[in-house]
C-alpha cells in the first residue's frame, strides 16, 4: 500500500516577531527572567517592609525623657525597663490569653465545617461554602465589628432573644462571672472573644480544610480494614494528619488577635489589650519608643510560637 510522504509543515521561524524574540531570549536566560519577576517585590520587601520594621525596632531602643517629653536618640534599654512594669505585663498576659482562647475556640468551631467541606461536600456545595466562608472578608472589617457591637448591646438582638426565651437569668449569670463578664455582652471580654472568633474564622477553616484534603481516602479505608471503628480512625489517622492545618490556622488567629486594637476598642472596657496600648502611646502620650517596644512583644511571642509550630511540622501545610 502506497502511503504519501508527509511534507514538512509551515515553518515557525518565518512568523517570528520581536515579541517572540524577547520571549526566546528570556527562555534561554532563566536567571534573568527570575530577576525581572522577583526584582520589584524584593525591592518593596527590603526597602518598605524591612526598612520600617528595623526603624520600629530601632525606635524601641530610644527613650523618652520624662521631663522634656523629647525622644533621646541614643541606644538604651530604659524603654524595655519601663515596658516590664506590672501594669504592662498584665496587658501582655491578657492579650496572650485572649489570643490563645480565640485560637482554640476557632479551631473547635472550624474543624467540623472544614471536615464537611473536605470530605463530603459535592463540588457545587463546596463552591457555595467557600463563598460563604470568604464573603465576610469582602465587607469592611470595621463595619462588621460595629455590627457585632449592636448585636451584642444591651438593647441588641441577642439580649432580646434571651429575654424573649425567658433565659435572661442565664445570660445575666454568665455576665456576672468575674473577668469574662461585664454590664452587657458588648462591654465584656466575652463579647470581644465572640467577635474575634467570628472575624478570624475563615483563616482557620481554609488551612484545616487543605490539610484534610491531603489525606488520601485509602488511609481511612486502611484503618477501617485493620479493624478500627470510625471514631478510632478519626483519632489515630484523621486528627494527627490535620494537626498541621490547625496549627497553621492558629498562627493566623493568634497573631491577628495579638495585634488587633479595633475589637477591644469597640467592645472592651478600660482594661487594655496590646493594640490599644500602642495606640494610646503613639497618640495622647506620644511615647513612640514605648509604643515601639510594645509592638516588639507580640513579634517576640509570635517568633516563639512559629519556632514551636515549625518543630511540629505545622508550616508544611501553609
Amino acid at each position, binding site marked *: 500500500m502506497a502511503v504519501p510522504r508527509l511534507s514538512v509543515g509551515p515553518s515557525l521561524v518565518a512568523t517570528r516577531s520581536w515579541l517572540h524574540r524577547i520571549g526566546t531570549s528570556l527562555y534561554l536566560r532563566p536567571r534573568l527572567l527570575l530577576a525581572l519577576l522577583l526584582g520589584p517585590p524584593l525591592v518593596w520587601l527590603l526597602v518598605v517592609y524591612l526598612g520600617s520594621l528595623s526603624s520600629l525596632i530601632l525606635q524601641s531602643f530610644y527613650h523618652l525623657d520624662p521631663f522634656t517629653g523629647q525622644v533621646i536618640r541614643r541606644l538604651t534599654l530604659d524603654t524595655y525597663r519601663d515596658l516590664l512594669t506590672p501594669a504592662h505585663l498584665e496587658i501582655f498576659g491578657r492579650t496572650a490569653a485572649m489570643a490563645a482562647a480565640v485560637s482554640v475556640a476557632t479551631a473547635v468551631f472550624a474543624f467540623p465545617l472544614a471536615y464537611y467541606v473536605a470530605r463530603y461536600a459535592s463540588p457545587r456545595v463546596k463552591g457555595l461554602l467557600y463563598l460563604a466562608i470568604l464573603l465576610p472578608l469582602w465587607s469592611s472589617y470595621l463595619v462588621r465589628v460595629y455590627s457585632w457591637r449592636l448585636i451584642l448591646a444591651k438593647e441588641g438582638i441577642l439580649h432580646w432573644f434571651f429575654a424573649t426565651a425567658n433565659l435572661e437569668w442565664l445570660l445575666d449569670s454568665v455576665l456576672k462571672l468575674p473577668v469574662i463578664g461585664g454590664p452587657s455582652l458588648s462591654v465584656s471580654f466575652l463579647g470581644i472573644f465572640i467577635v474575634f472568633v467570628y472575624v478570624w474564622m475563615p483563616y482557620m477553616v481554609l488551612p484545616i480544610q487543605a490539610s484534610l484534603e491531603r489525606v488520601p481516602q*485509602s488511609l481511612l*479505608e486502611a484503618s477501617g480494614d*485493620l*479493624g478500627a471503628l470510625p471514631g478510632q480512625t478519626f483519632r*489515630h489517622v484523621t486528627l494527627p494528619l490535620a494537626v498541621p492545618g490547625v496549627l497553621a490556622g492558629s498562627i493566623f488567629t493568634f497573631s491577628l488577635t495579638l495585634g488587633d486594637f479595633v475589637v477591644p476598642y469597640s467592645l472592651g472596657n478600660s482594661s487594655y489589650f496590646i493594640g490599644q496600648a500602642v495606640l494610646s502611646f503613639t497618640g495622647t502620650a506620644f511615647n513612640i519608643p514605648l509604643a515601639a517596644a510594645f509592638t516588639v512583644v507580640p513579634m517576640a511571642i509570635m517568633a516563639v510560637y512559629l519556632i514551636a509550630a515549625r518543630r511540629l511540622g505545622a508550616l508544611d501545610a501553609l
Partner: protein
Amino acid sequence: MNPGSTPPAIRFRSVSRLFGDMRAVDDLSLDILDGEFFTFLGPSGSGKTTCLRLIAGFDQPTSGSIELHGSDVTSLPPYEREVNTVFQDYALFPHMTVAENIAYGLMIRKVPKGDRARQVREMLDLVRMPGMEARKPSQLSGGQRQRVALGRALILRPRVLLLDEPLGALDLKLRQQMQVELKAIQQKVGITFLYVTHDQEEALTMSDRIAVINRGRIEQIGSPADLYEHPATPFVADFVGVSNLIVGPLAMSLTGSADTFAIRPEKIQILPADSKPPDGRVTLEGQIREVVYLGMITRYLVAIEGGHELTVIKQNRDTTSMEVLAARSQRVLLAWDPQYHRRLAPEAS
C-alpha cells in the same frame, strides 16, 4: 454444599454493582477456595478492583450477596470483616513509624505493647526488613513500603488477604523478585490470597487459579496453564499471552469449519517459501512484513492472503540479529500442527 466439607473462603452469589448505568460488576458468581492463591485478571475498568472493594467492605453490592467462610458479610462494615487489604498506593500512615504502621491493627485490638513489639519483629523478618522499626514511610523505597504494607495486613493473621495491584508501582526486576516472594509468603502462612492485576505475566507466575474479568463478567476461570493453552473466548486468547485469531473464510479454508480458532505465535514455524512441510501440517504462504528483534526472541509479522497478518515468535537460538533482520519482505511458508488450534466461543456481545 456437602455437610462437613469446608465452605469456600469467598463466595459471590450473583453480585452486581452499578455505578449509574455502568455495570462495574455484572451478576458475578464465584467460589474461591480456602488456601488458594486466586487472581482477578483484567484490563483497567474491567471491575476487578470493584470486586475486591466489595469483599473488603469499602463498597456494597447493588444486588447479590458475598460470603466469607460460609457466613454472609454483605452488610458488614470493613472493621467487622476478617479480611485485610494491601492497597495499590500502600496507604501507609505517614505520621507513624514502620513499627507503628505494622502494629496498627494490634494497637486497635489492645494487644499489650511487649507482645506487639515481638510480633512486629517477626513480621519484619517475614517480609525481610529486619531492624527497620523506627523508620518513617517517607524514608523507605517503593519496594520497602510494599513490604511494610504486606506486614501490616498479615500481622492480624487474616484468613483472606486481598492485594490490589500491589506491585504496580515497582520496576520490572523488583516486581519479578516480589512475585516470587509473595508466592513463598503465601505458601508459608497458608492463607487465601486474592490478587488483582492487569499484568497477565504476574497472574501466570503466582496464581493457583485465575479469573479473567472483562466488563464486569468472568470470561474464564482456570489454572494458568489452562488459560494459556485452552482459552475459552477470543478475549482470553488475546489478553492472556498473544494469539492469532483465525476467523471466517480463512478458518473455513484451513479447517473446513467457519468457527473462529486461535493459534499461538510460538506454535507457528517459518519455512523457506519453496520447502516442503512435514505431513499433517496446516500451511499458508506469506510475506514477512515486519521483524521485531527482542533479544531472546524475534517477533515476525507475516502478511497472508486476504489482507490478514499473523504474528509468529521464534527463539533466537541459532541466529544473529543481522540474519533475522535480513528476513524482512522475504516470501515464506508458515506451517503448524492443527492440534494447537483452539476453537473459541463467539464473543459475548
